């Protein structure tokens, strides 16, 4: 029988340290739903999603009960909708978002990702139609998440898309101004987007994926932070070892749940995403882990090094715990969703410039950051271009999820609600980037794209 100490350790992690499974995400291919008639296409989309994901939520809840571990979110990701809607006879892609939203509601999931387009090298007409409908789509739907891939290491950066996305983010914020620009919390701009990411808002079901798969995202910043309290003052390699061991345990939970869900739903198991995903709850913060390593406040000098260690150790620990690792797999640093990050931003220690440096070594990018509502679209585009450049050159995924909150100034707070948390409005540089952004065109693929 399992040792008593081990049983209580697991229960302690769940009860006191916020150990949970962050998400079970069912990826569903909608490639067979394309139709010239948009009404037929949207009906097919609704029917297929509700058929595939009918049992997702009840099965998730059943597993939660039996294992005694919370599964916080049950979600759906679908084929980038621009591919499905390309054949459509309508200029307006909003009906496709509405169909996704209805299906999500019917299935009882709390987000559906994949109102997406991949335009790293150029736009199709369908891509352009989808991107232009994003502000309306995100304002009219409750559960739909959108992501646009504007760059990759292989293709370079589509600067026309970068410019356009700055404008789209502004328009989305204005269209959802009554909710402080909440629409922008459901919109991610990527470089090197991954096809099997289970986390929102950037999840979509890539074109290389199977018909239907189950991907699982784990969590566990609280567990890592707690484990580090036991090695206070010890050399930094002990910290790395401790994070590794903890990440192993956390990921094993994810692997178990993924296998179980896959068996019960009779859907192939895709991947476990090893990410450390924080929540706004006390004791579930990535920033506090960095501080536990010996930094007075997240964002001060040393933060990037501490984050690099954390990100790497999480992967090393997790990779042995799961047979299939994928997604984004690393440490997330969403400002509004992390109690320690919020505190550091409010104290002025954590700035956008420091966050940008941190994104060179973390798993994603500038995430859930509120900026003043009067930030020009070109400045948002320039922020996206910087992030995309980091991703392109370093062969990694980077992303921007930024909220130019209408009417808000530096120091104000933007309440997103629930897991999206509270975003302190952060300062951006006021010097213009407009002439750079208005050039348009493409930043060529870097030398390290030529690997063959």
């Amino acid at each position, binding site marked *: *029988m*399992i*040792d*008593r100490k*081990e*049983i*209580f*350790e*697991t*229960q302690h992690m769940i009860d006191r340290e916020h150990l949970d499974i962050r998400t079970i995400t069912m990826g569903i291919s909608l490639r067979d739903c394309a139709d010239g008639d948009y009404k037929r296409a949207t009906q097919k989309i609704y029917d297929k999603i509700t058929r595939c994901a009918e049992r997702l939520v009840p099965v998730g809840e*059943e597993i939660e*009960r*039996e*294992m*005694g*571990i919370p599964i916080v979110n049950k979600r759906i990701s679908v084929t980038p909708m621009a591919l499905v809607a390309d054949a459509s006879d309508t200029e307006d892609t909003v009906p496709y978002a509405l169909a996704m939203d209805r299906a999500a509601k019917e299935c009882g999931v709390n987000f559906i990702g994949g109102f997406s387009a991949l335009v790293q090298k150029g736009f199709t007409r369908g891509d352009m139609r989808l991107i232009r409908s994003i502000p309306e789509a995100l304002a009219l739907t409750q559960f739909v998440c959108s992501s646009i891939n504007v760059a990759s290491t292989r293709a370079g950066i589509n600067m026309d898309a970068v410019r356009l996305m700055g404008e789209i983010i502004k328009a989305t914020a204005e269209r959802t101004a009554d909710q402080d620009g909440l629409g922008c919390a459901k919109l991610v701009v990527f470089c090197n987007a991954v096809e099997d990411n289970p986390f929102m808002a950037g999840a979509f079901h890539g074109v290389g994926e199977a018909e239907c798969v189950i991907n699982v995202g784990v969590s566990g910043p609280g567990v890592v932070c707690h484990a580090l309290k036991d090695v206070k003052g010890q050399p930094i390699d002990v910290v790395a070892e401790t994070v590794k061991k903890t990440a192993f*345990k956390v990921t*094993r*939970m994810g*692997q*178990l749940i993924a296998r*179980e869900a896959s*068996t*019960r739903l*009779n859907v192939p198991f895709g991947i476990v995403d090893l990410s450390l995903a924080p929540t706004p709850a006390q004791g579930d913060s990535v920033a506090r882990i960095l501080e536990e390593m010996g930094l007075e406040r997240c964002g001060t000098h040393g933060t990037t090094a501490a984050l690099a260690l954390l990100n790497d150790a999480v992967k090393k620990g997790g990779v042995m715990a799961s047979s299939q690792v994928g997604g984004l797999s690393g440490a997330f640093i969403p400002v509004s969703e992390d109690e320690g990050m919020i505190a550091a931003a409010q104290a002025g220690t954590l700035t956008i410039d420091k966050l940008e440096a941190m994104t060179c070594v973390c798993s994603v990018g500038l995430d859930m950051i509120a900026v003043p509502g009067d930030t020009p679209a070109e400045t948002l585009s320039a922020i996206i271009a910087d992030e995309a450049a980091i991703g392109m050159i370093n062969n990694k995924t980077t992303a921007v999820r930024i909220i130019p909150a209408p009417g808000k100034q530096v120091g104000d707070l933007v309440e997103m609600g629930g897991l999206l948390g509270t975003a302190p409005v952060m300062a951006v540089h006021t010097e213009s980037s407009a002439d750079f952004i208005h050039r348009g065109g493409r930043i060529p693929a870097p030398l390290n794209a030529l690997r063959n």
Partner: protein
Amino acid sequence: MNGASIIMHAIVTVIGQDRVGIIAGICVALAGINVNVLDISQTILGGMFTMVMLVDIKEASVPFGEISKVLDAEGERLGMTIRIQREDIFNAMHRI
């Protein structure tokens, strides 16, 4: 259970103030729904009763959710916190 996976063992943990009849009460409750007790380990630390039971739920007469409810009710009656979880979660975390 929907029968999709073959699972049998679960761990019952019991924590609370020590008193007469804890083990008896829980075992009777489990017997009533045909859950077989395979192993019990129990200690008292500073008046605090902690018990870990390995049980076989293969032949249980009710689904897992109901077993959990039966134990919750018994826990309420005894003034103890009782929890049942499948053994798999502990094996996954602590055994390679």
